[in-house]
């Protein structure tokens, strides 16, 4: 195939491949959505297909403690999901904001200043990027419980999520701050702006795409994380992933309701993906391409 052939019109085979990939990628998610809209009778019946009467019953069961009415089909209302949703929202939002504020300041310092200890900090953030949650499980449980006394609180969960996300955020924002022309900052300094004013009023607005990418990645981790949330949360501070896993049993899974809760957990990331796919791809590629 020569370069000319490439430039010529689209080839049906490539479109077939493209469509096949889209179907394979989205298929399981569509299936989850479809299942969440089905009654258990339909899920169990042999004639499974995409043709069915959608019902909101599973969502009503999942959200029963947040509804203003009592759905007839709900026999027992488990009052955990609504609270977990609120917890998840608070934990993810607060930890994202904190991580971004702390992270962008650190990234700026590492990019724009030469000072003693800079290399140590830089290397530490690089090395701590790969620490898996499973590794932190034992020490975080011990320290949060016995030393900081913040186990079972949202604050405790937020603290560990901020720490987990910081290295990545610092590192990704560095690659955006490097691209800000230094002349702009010098001009601001000439006009009498202090370093903090320069940073917040001149630099930050220019790295908005980077901040967006970092925010999405941070929110995603905090919103989706299960292991540490499970170890640290008590009944009142449980997040959605923790409630979902705890409601899973070996047999007799209520697939309709489970899929509805899964859908609810998946909605924010899905929205982010459709709204900001470009920023997400930027964030991802900055990782490998810029080393």
């Amino acid at each position: 195939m020569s370069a000319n052939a490439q430039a010529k019109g689209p080839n049906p085979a490539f479109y077939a491949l493209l469509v096949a990939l889209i179907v394979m990628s989205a298929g399981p998610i569509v299936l989850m959505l479809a299942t969440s809209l089905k009654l258990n009778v339909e899920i169990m019946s042999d004639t499974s297909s995409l043709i069915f009467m959608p019902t909101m019953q599973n969502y009503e069961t999942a959200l029963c403690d947040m509804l203003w009415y009592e759905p007839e089909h709900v026999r027992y209302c488990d009052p955990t999901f609504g609270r977990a949703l609120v917890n998840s929202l608070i934990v993810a939002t607060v930890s994202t904001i904190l991580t971004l504020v702390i992270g962008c300041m650190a990234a700026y310092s590492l990019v724009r200043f030469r000072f003693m200890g800079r290399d140590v900090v830089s290397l530490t953030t690089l090395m701590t990027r790969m620490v898996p949650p499973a590794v932190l499980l034992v020490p975080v449980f011990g320290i949060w419980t016995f030393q900081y006394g913040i186990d079972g609180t949202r604050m405790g969960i937020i603290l560990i999520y901020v720490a987990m996300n910081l290295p990545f955020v610092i590192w990704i924002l560095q690659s955006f701050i490097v691209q800000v022309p230094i002349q702009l900052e010098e001009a601001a300094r000439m006009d009498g702006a202090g370093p903090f004013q320069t940073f917040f009023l001149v630099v930050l607005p220019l790295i908005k795409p980077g901040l967006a990418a970092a925010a999405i990645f941070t929110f995603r981790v905090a919103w989706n994380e299960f292991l540490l949330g499970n170890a640290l949360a008590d009944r009142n501070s449980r997040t959605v992933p923790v409630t979902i896993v705890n409601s899973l049993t070996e047999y007799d899974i209520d697939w309709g309701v489970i899929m509805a809760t899964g859908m609810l957990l998946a909605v924010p990331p899905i929205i982010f993906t459709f709204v900001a796919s470009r920023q997400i791809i930027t964030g991802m590629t900055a990782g490998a391409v810029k080393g």
Partner: protein
Amino acid sequence: MQTANVNRLTPYLFLAPAVIVLAVALLYPIGYMIWASFLNWNPSQRIGEAEFVGLRNYMFLLQDGAFRESFFVTIRFAVIVVVLEMCLGVGLAFLLDRKLRGMTVLRTIFILPMMIAPIVVGLMWRYMYHPSVGIFNRTLKSLGLDPVPWLSNGDWAFASIVIADIWQWTPFIFILSLAALQSLPSSAMEAARIDGATGWRLIWHIKLPLMMPVLIVTALLRMIDAFKVLEVILVMTNGGPGLSTEILALRISRTASEFRELGTAAAMSNLLLLLLMLLTLAMFAYTKITEARAARLRARAEKDS
């Protein structure tokens, strides 16, 4: 004089919050864990009350068949998924490296599996692998074929978690290698074309070598992540049947919460951390070397011209 002082302090002021958080919530726990790995410690004790046992936890792990098994499951899983995903992802990037109208849609859809909670990914696949209501066995049945014991047989369960991981992460490789492919220097492509390199030879001798630095970093990034996978497998198989899908991260969490042996779990965490540290260092060293080589080439090119 005072302004000079402020200037010297500025970088530290910017850095202080991050350093404090990292020290309090990341570095201290890691140090704590290294200490804990020398203790015989259970969750009802304060760490000060735990008995110091030296290297006993590590000696125990060396002899523990279950740990060895889960260590090899982890390595096997990481190597297999990285190899398969690299082949698929890079292959797709070459196939779809053209200006097709649907590419933006594909890229957006492709990010979804990575954005959704791993817990939910696990749920979806557990549902699809379900012996009777799952879509795979239903399809097999309607074709008149025998059902497959997706999650109830050891080998099939391992294959099942590999398939789910491929679904979730091949897009990552695809997106990165497509970006690398499309940012290849056009001058090199032009030169190759003038030399008459086309099709396979262009890919094999020109494009792939030029993309190599990015591909290697991508593979290492994916490898590091593959060692971290936990939730998808936890929801799908919880390590079973037997130990067939019990990756290290799962083994750590089970040792800590089910067996209540925090010392042993800490020792395991240390070994996993060491492994990941080596991979990260390898990645770091590799990028430094390629950067240096690129700088040298650039310098030579400038001197020549």
